[in-house]
């Protein structure tokens, strides 16, 4: 009994950091509507800065002062980030904000390694809380007791701040209707900046308080952010009480999950999250989201099928790509195959995002399922390659059918988070179910048969499948189904009022995208000769998102260009510099801020402009009519 009680207290102590970070994220989201992916990075920075300060200054004052000063220093960094970056993208779609802050996270990951080195750092123990208390023969560290006390204190402090101060009233008002608050003459800029500073302060404090308990390392950010997403989704985005309750719930699930179901401890939390989202899509303490806004100014170039000339151009491009084996070496061909595979993957996500308006943050799940499907069939069933290649991706289809059914019940940020959670579930299964998947060691020896084994033949195979996949997706975009899907994206109200079953249409699109991603994964397994849980991981999902945005989300086939540029750049960067994440992160931030339409979107806009300017100069009358049209 005592053991369980101690386990319960350990869970409560772990909840402290989680609550601090989650409440910060929630406060920021409530007012600015930004889901700050970089919150994990601020948490990690808090830990690193606190480590340096507490090492430099000794004594109780040095330690506790160091913790608080570290949180303040990181809050200042947060203010700079808010003023320089976020102010430019407050009116961008949520997806762009998530990506920009993810870019920041990537940059911070490399920066901390550059400053503090790649090794784990062990912090000092807290003065005054070095010992342990005996509880019926079980030891409880006194620092854990301190952490248990911290959460209610912070919760109370925040409550006082929001209920009893003028600033707090403004924040609560802005959470309900920020446009109205702005209309009442409140300086919104500084309100946002101060809220962001508070949120970052809480995150950094959460990180700093962890140093006596945990080693500081450069992967802390992703570890905490996934947990924090789960917490705010369960608790309800924007609710501080929700963050508190959910932080405790998640920490206790972790603490007891390990005891009761050691095999599926990671999954347990995600299962709870999925159940909460399905029963209460806006979280336990949250409120239903207003409809996602469309970005003003980000006008869409009208979609149309390729003209005959453009079709020939595409075929010519494909022919040139097919000639690569004539003059390129084996390494270049392997890179070429990988790029072709990622074209398929990015195109599948692009279909879901641009046509369906459904930004999946866990699309790698279906890529990875396709890869594992092939590995099972080829290694365990010993099926011939062509059969595995055709049947294996169906595992992606099955996964997309199951998860997609639940995911399409939601939209916007919650859709993104639920898909992320599902991808993590699949990842956990692949990671923990060692007897079947080999766990971290993966499944090795998935080699192509002779006819496809050479780099050139495998390249042609990948290129061929990529061309077919992109062509099929394009046909679907312009098919009646594609229009039905766009209709659900443009206006759910109207599409329902003309007899469209929006959920079923979106579910179908999810299954199509998942299946195509499965084919990409299947090829990837053969390319690498192996499958690892990485091919289901978050970073692969995010890569896909970046490729789509880079190409241009509001285009028909931007993902093709995005995938080629991103993958080539990525492979080249990794070979050229150790700071590839820094460069890549900076690149992502730059795209979001400077080219939100993506490469293809910018090209289309330039072409449209040129087209209209030539027609204007050619005849005065057409100029006059176009003027009238714009005036109407």
């Amino acid at each position, binding site marked *: 009994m005592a053991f369980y009680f101690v386990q319960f207290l350990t869970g409560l102590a772990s909840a402290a950091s989680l609550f601090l970070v989650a409440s910060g994220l929630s406060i920021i989201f409530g007012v600015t509507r930004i889901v700050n992916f970089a919150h994990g990075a601020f948490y990690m920075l808090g830990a690193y800065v606190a480590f340096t300060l507490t090492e430099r200054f000794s004594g109780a004052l040095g330690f506790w002062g160091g913790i608080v000063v570290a949180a303040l220093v990181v809050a200042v960094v947060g203010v700079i980030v808010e003023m320089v970056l976020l102010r430019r993208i407050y009116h961008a779609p949520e997806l762009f904000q998530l990506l920009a802050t993810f870019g920041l996270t990537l940059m911070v990951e490399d920066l901390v390694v550059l400053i503090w080195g790649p090794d784990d750092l062990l912090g000092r123990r807290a003065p005054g809380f070095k010992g342990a208390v005996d509880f019926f023969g079980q030891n409880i560290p006194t620092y854990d007791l301190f952490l248990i006390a911290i959460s209610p204190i912070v919760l109370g402090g925040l409550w006082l701040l929001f209920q009893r101060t003028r600033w707090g009233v403004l924040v609560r008002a802005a959470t309900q209707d920020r446009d109205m608050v702005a209309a009442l003459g409140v300086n919104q800029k500084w309100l946002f900046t101060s809220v962001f500073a508070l949120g970052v302060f809480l995150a950094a404090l959460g990180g700093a308080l962890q140093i006596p308990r945990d080693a500081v390392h450069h992967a802390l950010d992703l570890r905490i952010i996934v947990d924090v997403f789960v917490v705010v989704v369960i608790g309800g985005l924007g609710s501080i009480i929700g963050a508190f309750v959910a932080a405790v719930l998640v920490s206790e699930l972790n603490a007891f999950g390990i005891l009761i179901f050691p095999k599926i401890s990671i999954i347990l939390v995600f299962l709870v999250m999925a159940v909460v989202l399905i029963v209460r899509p806006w979280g336990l303490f949250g409120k239903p989201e207003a409809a996602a806004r469309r970005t003003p100014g980000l006008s869409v170039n*009208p979609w149309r099928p390729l003209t005959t000339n453009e079709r020939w151009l595409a075929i010519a491009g494909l022919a040139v790509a097919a000639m690569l084996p004539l003059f390129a070496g084996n390494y270049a061909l392997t890179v070429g195959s990988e790029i072709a595979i990622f074209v398929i993957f990015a195109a599948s996500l692009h279909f879901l995002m641009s046509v369906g308006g459904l930004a999946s943050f866990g699309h790698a799940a279906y890529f990875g399922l396709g890869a594992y499907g092939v590995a099972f069939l080829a290694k365990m069933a010993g099926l011939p390659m062509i059969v595995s290649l055709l049947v294996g991706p169906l595992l992606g289809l099955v996964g997309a059918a199951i998860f997609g059914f639940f995911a399409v019940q939601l939209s916007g940020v919650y859709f993104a988070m639920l898909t992320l959670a599902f991808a993590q579930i699949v990842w956990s299964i692949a990671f923990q179910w060692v007897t079947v998947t080999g766990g971290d060691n993966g499944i090795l020896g998935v080699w192509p048969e002779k006819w496809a084994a050479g780099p050139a033949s495998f390249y042609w195979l990948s290129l061929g499948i990529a061309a077919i996949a992109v062509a099929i997706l394009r046909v679907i975009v*312009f098919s009646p189904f*594609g229009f039905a899907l766009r209709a659900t994206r443009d206006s759910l109200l*109207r599409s329902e009022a*003309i007899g469209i079953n929006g959920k079923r249409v979106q579910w179908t699109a999810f299954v199509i995208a998942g299946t195509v991603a499965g084919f990409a994964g299947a090829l990837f397994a053969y390319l690498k000769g192996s499958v690892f849980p990485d091919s289901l991981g978050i970073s692969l999902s995010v890569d896909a998102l970046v490729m789509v945005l880079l190409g241009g989300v509001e285009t028909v086939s931007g993902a093709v260009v995005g995938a080629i540029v991103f993958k080539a750049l990525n492979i080249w960067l990794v070979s050229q510099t150790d700071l590839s994440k820094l460069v890549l992160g900076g690149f992502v931030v730059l795209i979001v801020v400077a080219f939100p339409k993506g490469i293809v979107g910018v090209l289309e806009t330039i072409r449209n402009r040129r087209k209209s300017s030539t027609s204007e100069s050619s005849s005065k009358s057409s100029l006059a009519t176009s003027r009238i049209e714009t005036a109407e």
Partner: protein
Amino acid sequence: MSMVPTLLSVENLSKSYGGVHAVRSVSFALRAGEILALIGPNGAGKSTCFDMLNGQNIPDSGRINLLGEDTVGKKPRQVWRLGVGRTFQITATFPTMTVRENVQVALVSYGRQLFNLWGSTARYAREEAGRLLDLVGMGAYAGRPCGELAYGDLKRLELAIALANQPKLLLMDEPTAGMAPRERIELMRLTAQIAREKSIGVLFTEHDMDVVFEHADRILVLNRGSLIAEGTPEQVRGNPQVRAIYLGEGLVYDSRHREGAGA
């Protein structure tokens, strides 16, 4: 009168939110080709009534019979399949598509081609879409992105979309809100003309009394959720209760009184 079939009959429809009775035991009927206006001050329950007819809201009690079918509990898309077109108070269209494509999507749905992955939407029912657009005077705009349209044109486009399933009943929630006075008259004249030609029943809500008294065959007056009067424009205009509660005492078009009644 008995020769014209009843399209829609509503019996004892009620809906309350907490302690507020938004709609109380409302009953009425609508015949084919008839234009029926539902009026009442803000908060009278017009929109709640509308949403229940369309399937967007589920009544607490009462019956809705549409063309012989009980529609309570049916979803909007199922009601649409029975032959009901709907326009919204705030227009709902597909802004990233062209005007023609907006109508084509509705036609795709009507033709049950929603899950056709292989055809070309551009060629699907192009003539039919053009005909519907011509009907509402939007033919010249067919190729324009819908997001660029002026508000009055969006209202006309919505009418074309609503006609795509060859409806027997049109539900129009404040069809002329946000339009210039001349556009209002024109749109309602057009609607009335289409309704008479195709024998479509029209139920609409409206705040503009010029529009209501000019085009409605009959008028229903709601106040605080209850039907307080029903009849021809002349009958309603002369009803002292309506004048007192809705139009205000004294001058019929005194804006001060109307706002007072609406608050």
